[in-house]
């Protein structure tokens, strides 16, 4: 067992982990942050996407020990401190970008990462960016719409 310390959703946390403990397991089982989901064991579905030092990563494909000292953000930490949902979260509700909700945390985290990199993505760019996020329910139509709407909402209004 080794000790790991990191910041999760703005709070310093630490715990004892085995070498093989995945970041996803640490989040779900040690920190009880069960919004990060596990949908596969071949690193393809993206239900587990979180941000580590600002970058989208698959929490099922990273060891907890590798996140030593990192800033981790999960779906539980993406809304404002007062609980106001982020523009992406709001747009997912507004545009019905979720059904069963299982892929949703990963989708929302990927969408935030996309919009941080590219504030004005085209439909094709949104679809391409979601390469590693599988949704079985929505057929993606409303996810794409929601992300485009969130992008429009988040973009600073261009000066006329």
């Amino acid at each position, binding site marked *: 067992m080794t000790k790991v310390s990191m910041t999760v959703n703005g709070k310093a946390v630490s715990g004892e982990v085995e070498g093989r403990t995945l970041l996803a397991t640490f989040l779900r089982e040690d920190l009880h942050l069960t919004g990060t989901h596990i949908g596969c064991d071949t690193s393809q579905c*993206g239900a587990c996407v979180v941000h580590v030092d600002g970058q989208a990563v*698959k929490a099922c494909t990273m060891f907890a020990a590798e996140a030593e000292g990192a800033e981790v953000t999960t779906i539980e930490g993406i809304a404002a401190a007062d609980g106001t949902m982020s523009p992406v979260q709001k747009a997912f509700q507004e545009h019905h970008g979720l059904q069963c909700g299982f892929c949703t945390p990963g989708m929302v985290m990927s969408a935030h990462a996309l919009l941080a990199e590219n504030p004005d993505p085209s439909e094709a760019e949104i679809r391409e960016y979601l390469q590693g996020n599988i949704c079985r329910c929505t057929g993606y139509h409303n996810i794409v719409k929601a992300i485009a709407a969130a992008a429009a909402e988040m973009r600073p209004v261009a000066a006329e």
Partner: protein
Amino acid sequence: MYDFQFARPTSLDEAVKALSAEDAQALGGGQTLIPTLKQRLAAPEVLVSLTGIRELRFVRRDGDTLRVGGTATHGMVAREAAAEFPGLAGMAVRIGDPAVRNRGTIGGSLANNDPSACYPAAVLAANATVVTNSREIAADEFFDGMFTTALDEGEIITEVRFPIPERANYQKFEQPASHFALVGVMVAKHADGVRVGVTGASEDGVFRWTEAEDALSGNYAPEAVDGLTVSADGMIGDLHGTPEYRAHLVKVLTKRAVAAS
């Protein structure tokens, strides 16, 4: 997963030492190794993470060479090579998905030498040199058939040196499920000739299509390969494509790469 000791050295020397232990294995971005460990197909005693070694994580130009550190992620290469070697950046940005690109490394990809991986085609076509903690290995000497390389036990890829070609392009035809390369072709036009690296197609792993290289060295145009045929012998046949189909794609993608370069 079987359990193991986790080591996170911060220098190359420490890493080399850690890897000299019995049943020690390097961990790059983990994008291949972690799923493998989950299936219990590997059982290292010690896993030596290389990502804490700052000196191995870089992308920089040095004269006519692009130098990529052994733990540079695909995402870094996609961004940081875009101006200097767009053909390579264009290849890196097609690997996996954004989250995979944020973790997966060039060293891991090359050491793994998956027959459908993208990097090996680029390394062969660019005639890159693979630098390890103990030696330099020419691209043509590095790959040794599916999942096999010239690397010795415990040897660490520290850097890959790409001579920057005049023109280059990577064409990837995705396998519909994994989105790895069903066939991927990298064409690079160097001052002294053209090199064509092909991945995904052959049962022997990545290879150079030398007939096309000769034809393209004479006339760098898509039509130059029109008269050539790729034999289906030794090509991979699976759920996603027959050997004939793969052989056909090699030619189609080569032409497209030339046109797009």
